């Protein structure tokens, strides 16, 4: 299966766009390598800012530049931007309505064996509780390009979490991808899996496994966590009668939290929140961690079958 990293897709795109628009500015915190920023800092030094290992200042300086009309993308590890500089995201970006896109790279458990210090498994819970902040987790490179294009067209305070590694290509083009609008896969009515990020492709694979057993599900790629596409959640609940959420995040406060908050108050149906439990995560690659927590296609298919029994 063809693969492309969201970070590489972003880097290629932003370099081309920035050559055409001198207000585009990329800010890094000794993270240009891990962000796979490539030639950008050398080709456009006047549109690049290197702050060093200082995420708080990076976000605040970005906000100041945005105040002057710059279209700022600040990139660094999701773990640090969502926690160490959470206050700067809250105050200088969201509350101050500065159009800064905070791109949390190597999100979730994609740093693998580097461990808990580098994992970002609380970022969505934190970021989505901040008013006036769009929260995105693209599932593939095309989604990343589409989200970037929309932010360039109409800036807004945003937190975008992407993974470290190449992910399967799910979408041929960016045509039907919009911030705030979920992308639906299949039309099964036995269950719906609402997923985000790199677990969407595993949900799609799980749908294939279930199909062989005569179980037909819908997969909803909920790449925008905030504002949540509640219409898509409502339809999934009405059409399928049960919902399993799937995310590379703590089972507390993430996509599962967002979906269950809506369902509990509007369309209560049996639900299962699949993610990383509230514990110390074993060292290993993201793939190994997903298998361990049954977030691989086989595990997801099993969880869906368990959930259907509760309908």
């Amino acid at each position, binding site marked *: 299966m063809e693969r492309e990293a969201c970070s590489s897709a972003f880097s290629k795109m932003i370099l081309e766009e920035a050559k055409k628009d001198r207000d585009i500015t990329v800010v890094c915190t000794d993270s240009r390598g891990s962000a796979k920023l490539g030639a950008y800092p050398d080709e456009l030094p006047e549109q690049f800012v290197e702050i060093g290992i200082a995420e*708080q200042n990076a976000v*605040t*300086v970005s906000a100041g*530049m945005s*105040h*002057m*009309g710059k279209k700022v993308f600040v990139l660094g590890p999701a773990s640090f931007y969502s926690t160490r500089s959470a206050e700067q995201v809250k105050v*200088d970006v969201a509350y101050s*309505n500065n159009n800064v896109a905070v791109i949390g790279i190597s999100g979730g458990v994609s740093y693998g064996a580097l461990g808990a210090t580098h994992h970002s498994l609380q970022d969505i819970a934190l970021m989505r509780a901040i008013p006036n902040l769009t929260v995105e987790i693209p599932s593939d490179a095309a989604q990343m390009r589409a989200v970037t294009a929309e932010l360039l067209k109409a800036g807004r305070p945003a937190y975008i979490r992407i993974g470290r590694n190449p992910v399967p290509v799910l979408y041929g083009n960016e045509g039907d991808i919009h911030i705030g609008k979920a992308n639906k896969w299949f039309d099964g009515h036995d269950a719906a899996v609402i997923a985000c990020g790199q677990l969407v492709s595993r949900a799609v694979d799980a749908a294939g496994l279930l199909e062989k057993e005569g179980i037909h599900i819908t997969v909803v790629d909920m790449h925008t966590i905030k504002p949540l596409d509640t219409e898509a959640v409502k339809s999934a609940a009405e059409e399928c009668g049960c919902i399993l959420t799937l995310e590379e995040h703590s089972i507390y406060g993430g996509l599962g939290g967002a979906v269950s908050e809506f369902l509990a108050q509007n369309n209560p149906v049996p639900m299962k929140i699949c993610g990383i439990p509230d514990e110390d995560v074993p060292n290993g690659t993201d793939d190994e961690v997903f298998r361990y927590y049954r977030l691989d296609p086989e595990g997801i298919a099993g969880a869906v079958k368990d959930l259907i029994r509760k309908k």
Partner: protein
Amino acid sequence: MLNKEQIKKLEIQASEICEKTVELIYNGGGGHIGGDLSEVDIMVSLFNYMKHDPKNPKWSGRDYFILSKGHSSETYYTLLSEYGYIDKTLLGKYGTFGSVLGGHPNKKIPGVEANTGSLGHGLGLASGIALALKRDGMPNRVYVLTGDGELGEGSNWEAMMSAAKYRLDNLTWIVDRNFLQISGQTEEVMPFVNLKKKAEAFGFKTVEINGHDYGQIFSALDIREKGRPVCIIADTVKGKRLACAENRADWHHKTPTKEQVDQLKKDMDAYRKELA
């Protein structure tokens, strides 16, 4: 260089701003009065020194000002009102439900560039503004006023490094050095020993002045050094001009009594007569 008449005029203006600030706090039922009054002379200087247009707060030729010590908002509001950025009647709603004039400044208020209140953000914001201006080849200057207790926040020191790295010689950072914070002496809470040397070492052209002396303030505001940001450490008196509050940490946030407000008015009247 200011002449005697100019200095006298500024001192009279400051005495009036001081009175109105205290009145605002009294009517509003509270405010960060100590830091409000220590910054009056710095703020009056800036409003007289900076390029700005109250009729057109977003004028592209303006200098930029950020009150990083956002809790000292009442002096700021008083000046914004005196200069016509906001309607004087708005001051009567300070701190009330739904009022745009809360305890900390917000960009919704004409003339305010940044939402401040959480300490340690202003210097970084000012640096971002200054960097964008430099990159766009714009001549505007950026001024930021921090407290001294505020410097406990590490983000200030991160911002100092990046301001020096990017040679932000269009940036002037002023420290309202009143040596007091809510718990007591800054040097006991967390010592900032050799602040001047520290700022110098971080790359700022640094001067230490009397923050209530207009001649010294204006001379310091004139400082320009190619390739270096400027830091003005302005030694001040917390609660300046309100006799009962001067140099007292317990006046960090307090509401004066009617008698204290009246006494200030008498004192300021006498002060102005003496100046005349």
